[in-house]
């Protein structure tokens, strides 16, 4: 693992509130024992339904950032949703708000989810729509998101931000360090010992 300090690249504006994980990754693509190939199915039904869906738009292919609205990733806890987005090429998401499970799932995959004010998201989305080639930079230490001459202030929870900056965003190794503490906590719980 390496620290994640800044994410730079072209961006894809995806308008709409409550885009749930069933829409990001319909359930039929969960029928597999690996995450391989999920990038092909991101928003598949929405894309079929709407030929001008941003994920179908040639101008946005190869984008690294996603700019979304409210409660993005609500619904099912399926990690297949952020896994699909990551495999498609998304390395950071900026939105008005996220479901907690989706945001947590993305974080452990190394995909920071920044929140920003509604008006600022609108500015970003509009700017990117007019200039699909604009390079967008999301800076984890300052929270600033810049797209050409538009700069907005984004936010990450402090713990998550620090974890990215100090390359501690994948927690398993941390959870396994000093494992005696875990055993001691377990031993104090009445039910673990069978009351």
């Amino acid at each position, binding site marked *: 693992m390496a620290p994640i300090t800044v994410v730079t690249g072209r961006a894809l504006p995806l308008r709409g509130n409550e885009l749930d994980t069933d829409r990001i990754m319909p359930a039929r693509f969960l029928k597999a024992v690996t995450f391989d190939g999920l990038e092909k199915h991101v928003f598949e039904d929405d894309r079929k339904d709407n030929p001008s869906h941003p994920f179908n738009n040639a101008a946005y292919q190869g984008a690294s950032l996603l700019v979304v609205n409210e409660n993005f990733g609500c*619904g099912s806890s399926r990690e297949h949703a952020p896994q699909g987005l990551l495999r498609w090429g998304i390395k950071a998401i900026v939105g008005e708000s996220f479901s907690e499970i989706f945001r947590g799932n993305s974080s452990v995959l190394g995909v920071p989810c920044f929140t920003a004010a509604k008006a600022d998201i609108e500015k970003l989305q509009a700017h990117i729509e007019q200039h699909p080639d604009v390079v967008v930079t999301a800076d984890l230490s300052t929270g600033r998101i810049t797209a050409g001459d538009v700069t907005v202030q984004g936010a990450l929870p402090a713990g998550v931000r620090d974890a990215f900056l100090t390359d501690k965003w994948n927690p398993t190794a941390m959870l396994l360090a000093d494992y005696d503490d875990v055993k001691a906590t377990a031993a104090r*719980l009445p039910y673990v010992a069978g009351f």
Partner: protein
Amino acid sequence: MPTLFEKVWNAHAVRTLPSGQTQLFVGLHLVHEVTSPQAFDMLRQHGWTVAYPQRTFATVDHIVPTSSQKRPFIDLTAEEMTTALERNCRQYGIQLFAPGDDATGQQGIVHVIGPELGLTQPGMTIACGDSHTSTHGALGAIAFGIGTSQVRDVLASQTLAMDPLKVRRIEVNGTLKPGVYAKDVILTIIRRLGVNGGVGYAYEYGGSTIDNMSIDERMTICNMSIEGGARVGYVNPDEKTFAFLKGRKYAPQGDAWDRAVAWWKSLASDPDATYDDHVVINAEEIEPTVTWGINPSQSVGVSEPISTKDQEALTYMGFTDGQKVAGTKIDVAFIGSCTNGRLSDLEEAARFVKGRHVAPHVKALVVPGSQEVRRQAEAKGLDKIFTAAGFEWRGAGCSMCLAMNPDKLVGNQISASSSNRNFKGRQGSPTGRTMLMSPVMVAAAAIAGEVTDVRLMLEEVTA
């Protein structure tokens, strides 16, 4: 003074991690076939093992066919996913409640079998790679859904890196009117607080309506907390909780039982506990409630008109602003899921269905939440009541709640469903339409052939 959430959190906190999050011990880890195979693979790749295999239990629910569970399944991917889980459980010494011929007879939806087997207990932290894990909070546990990478973390360490939650007390008071059920209460709560009103919160449900509810009804409420954005929902343990658990397979026995009850009692929120937020709802005002849109907050009382500016939802569902949901012709009726697939749900629906018949154009399914629910229902003759009325009686699983098995909507069919999500495409057809409601309202819709106010039909019976 602390809430149950705080007491349970503190008892399970191992330490503060360098990331600022809390390392939390997980008392019970539940696993199913869809979100776990990649986690076991990650475990192997890193050379880790399962830290507490005896605190992990597995079942197969999402992909099982419900017409026959005979192995090998006709659907080869479903068979492969089941085999992968069997192999993983064997390798790491995890108890699996499998479907099929040589099974334990305890297979079922993970959130139905946890409480049924007495695995779910007050004061536990419970995690499962499934967002409806909040269901288990009905017994006074702190239970939350996690993603696959976190399933790997729990397997490897029996702990999770978590941020604490605020607690919102949701008090429901008063007596529910006839024809109004727990499902209507939670749909009303979500309608009132919104689909992301609960982000950052655990929901503590209380008040006289909740106190008077059975554990099954409390599970219906806690189950859908996540649809309101709250990762955790719970009810403080009380005498009903203890009575529910007593004698169950994994519940404490003998002297241990008394010590357990004493501990459980000590965990309930203190009477003067402080909450981050407080909401009060009057049960008497709640009507049978039906969703008309594409997220679970888009609902109305069955006698109310739809009132919205959400054109996308109206267009998808084929409604117009101001229209009433009653009278909407349905194609499919689905009774089941972790929200409403327990014995009491089937009993309530069967009582209504008895002596009536499903409308000829409706395909109606009853899918028990577990094999145990199915056996108990059959012992009471419910299967006969349902089949005589024209319902199909199926094996246990998630079925048409998310349609990862052959039970699916076709085209833009409309389903009256007792499940928990009405998202676009949720029931297996990308253009399929779902209207969520209580199991009795589903039964009424199946019989009338259209969404209907069950109270009118209840009057028919009593008149």
